């Protein structure tokens, strides 16, 4: 039987009066990039800590099958971890920090040293290897932290907020490296809130809100299952009467993007033809484009729906 690399079944975690994770289940297949998404306080880091056995779930099970045999815990050399809050020794050199982390993950000293040299060269930090960590910029410190998490070539890497502190150029660079690691056979679980980056990278996502799963699947599946709006942007010549816009067929709401440019959000199932016919009857349209809702919008919509649902349940 082909077990998923990680299988999480109905885990729960409560801190004093707060339920941080509530009956959460998901699985990660070998070789995929799986993203845990959610706003601050959604429970992502708590989930990650439970996956690493830093915290123990109050209920539910976590099973790994990294080498085919299911186990409760991954071995140190099988797993890599990039914590959300950066954790290396600031008063110690980059090289020493990294070799130590490699050794703790089971690498022989010499092999760790060689791997550190290779990765530092790859991430343009070769000249900085003997500098203390706190002499590096925030972005470079993040690079070092990233190296520490994948130096030993784990089969499964958990990256908690890997893009934080990086400028756009380095964000792109990290996207390439993560894709490359996946190509080399590494399975990756990402926890992040930069949804635009994640939607370009992840094979599957799980949207988390208040410790519960809101949406799960591939980006296409999430879009299909979401009741988020289809967006149409019209560029209009001449005067336009905004008061009439919401009366166009299928329009849920609209927003003004720029002078003469309007974005219309259509209700799920609304007919594009009917909308365009209504718009063309009242507006002098000079340009038109349609957009899928971003993961960010889908997420906001899903959260909104969930809130409305729970309010209805309460009032009922």
């Amino acid at each position: 039987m082909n077990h998923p690399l990680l299988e999480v079944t109905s885990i729960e975690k409560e801190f004093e009066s707060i339920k941080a994770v509530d009956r959460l289940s998901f699985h990660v297949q070998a070789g995929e990039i799986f993203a845990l998404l959610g706003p601050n306080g959604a429970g992502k880091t708590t989930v990650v800590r439970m996956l690493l056995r830093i915290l123990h779930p109050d209920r539910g099970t976590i099973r790994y099958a990294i080498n085919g045999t299911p186990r409760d815990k991954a071995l140190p050399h099988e797993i890599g971890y990039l914590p959300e809050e950066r954790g290396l020794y600031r008063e110690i050199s980059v090289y020493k920090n990294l070799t130590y982390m490699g050794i703790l993950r089971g690498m022989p000293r010499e092999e760790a040293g060689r791997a550190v040299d290779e990765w530092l060269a790859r991430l343009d930090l070769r000249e900085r290897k003997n500098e203390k960590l706190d002499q590096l910029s925030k972005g470079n410190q993040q690079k070092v932290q990233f190296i520490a998490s994948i130096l030993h070539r784990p089969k499964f890497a958990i990256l908690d907020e890997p893009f934080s502190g990086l400028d756009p150029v380095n964000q792109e660079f990290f996207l390439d490296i993560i894709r490359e690691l996946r190509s080399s056979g590494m399975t990756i679980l990402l926890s992040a809130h930069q949804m635009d980056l994640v939607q370009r990278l992840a094979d599957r996502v799980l949207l988390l809100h208040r410790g519960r799963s809101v949406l799960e699947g591939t980006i296409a599946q999430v879009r299909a299952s979401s009741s988020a709006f289809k967006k149409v942007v019209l560029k209009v010549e001449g005067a336009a009467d905004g008061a009439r816009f919401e009366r166009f067929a299928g329009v849920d709401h609209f927003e003004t993007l720029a002078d003469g440019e309007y974005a219309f959000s259509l209700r799920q199932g609304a007919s594009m033809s009917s909308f365009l016919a209504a718009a063309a009857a009242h507006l002098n349209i000079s340009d038109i484009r349609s957009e899928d809702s971003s993961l960010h919008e889908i997420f906001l919509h899903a959260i909104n729906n969930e809130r409305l649902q729970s309010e209805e349940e309460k009032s009922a």
Partner: protein
Amino acid sequence: MKSRNMAYEIARWEFQRWFKWKDQIVTVAISLALSLAIWGGMALLASDDTAVKLSVIGQELLPLKIPTGSKLELQAAERKDEERLRELVGRDEIAGLLIIKSVDEAELLVYKEPFWKSELEQRLTEARIQVKIQELRIPSEQLAEALRPMTLSTAIHQQGQAPTSTAEKIAAGLVISVMLLGIFVGAAYQFVAITGEKQLRVTEMIVSAVTPQQWIDGKILGVSAYALAFTFTTTASIFLFVLVSQALGSGWTIPLEVTNPSNLLALILVALGGYLLWNTIFAAISATVNDPNTSARGSLLLAPFVPVAFAVFALKNPDTIAMRVFSFIPLTSPAVLPARLVLTEVAWWEVAVALLLLGLSIWFFRSASGKIFRLGMLMHGKEPSCKEIWRWVREV
């Protein structure tokens, strides 16, 4: 990699994190420089033979005798010269003017506080006694016989212990101090390392790779090894100081009790045991500290003073029942036993039992500390209460 090796790797990291050859060499060099400076200064003081010139009026009432070697130099003066001599004192041209008014009363006028005052008082008292004896007309032979101290001859049994010399007492005091220093250095580094790791959030990186017990074991071993290395350097510095002083003619010696191989081995083992025990305790305490700048638990770093306070009593009598009991109790033995090893003969079985008890308590505290460490290290934002800590310990 095996767990035993992982604890070794962590110990190695911790040791190298704190141990710097440069610092050790500087410590020894400072010791050498200090010993040269102290002895140079003392030689300079000894070469200063400036006499203290003191004019005395009325010496016929109280004949003062100044022994050879004294810096006091008396110059008899007439009463008519009193005013002139007072002016000389006012200009700091003579050290002082002593006016003897009677056998019972004298006045001393000086320009500044006299460091030789106690010697002068002693000479005046001696002279006064002589005058009084003469007044009582007691023959000096009879008086000498009456005042002669009783003769008490002391013989140490051939199987008994040689008396404790001053050098041994000083050595015992130094052994206690070096032990205390080693404990404090270890405790301080342990505290700084662990609270720092909590604040820098290194914790999650480490505990995702190794178990908390492996981590604490490695930390305890590494910091204890550092404390031991620090002790070696400090002891070497003291030896160097004594040897340099010897060469410069101090007459100081290093007691054989310190260099005797069996005693030396026992001292090293007790020191290592003491460092391991205290570092185990401090690792647990440190793991429960949220912010080292505000936590009241930092004051627990002073706890090792308690056994040292007991050990000081060993300098007076190292063979009391209390001292022997304290030599066995693991929290006090690392301070009391080394002092006794230098001051008296300690049976081999006493050392063996003390080391065994120390080893057992290290094992127990290691398990308890591992539990506290595991839970405390991942607790941020608040400190666990004593009740919570006690509950964790009871689960061991």
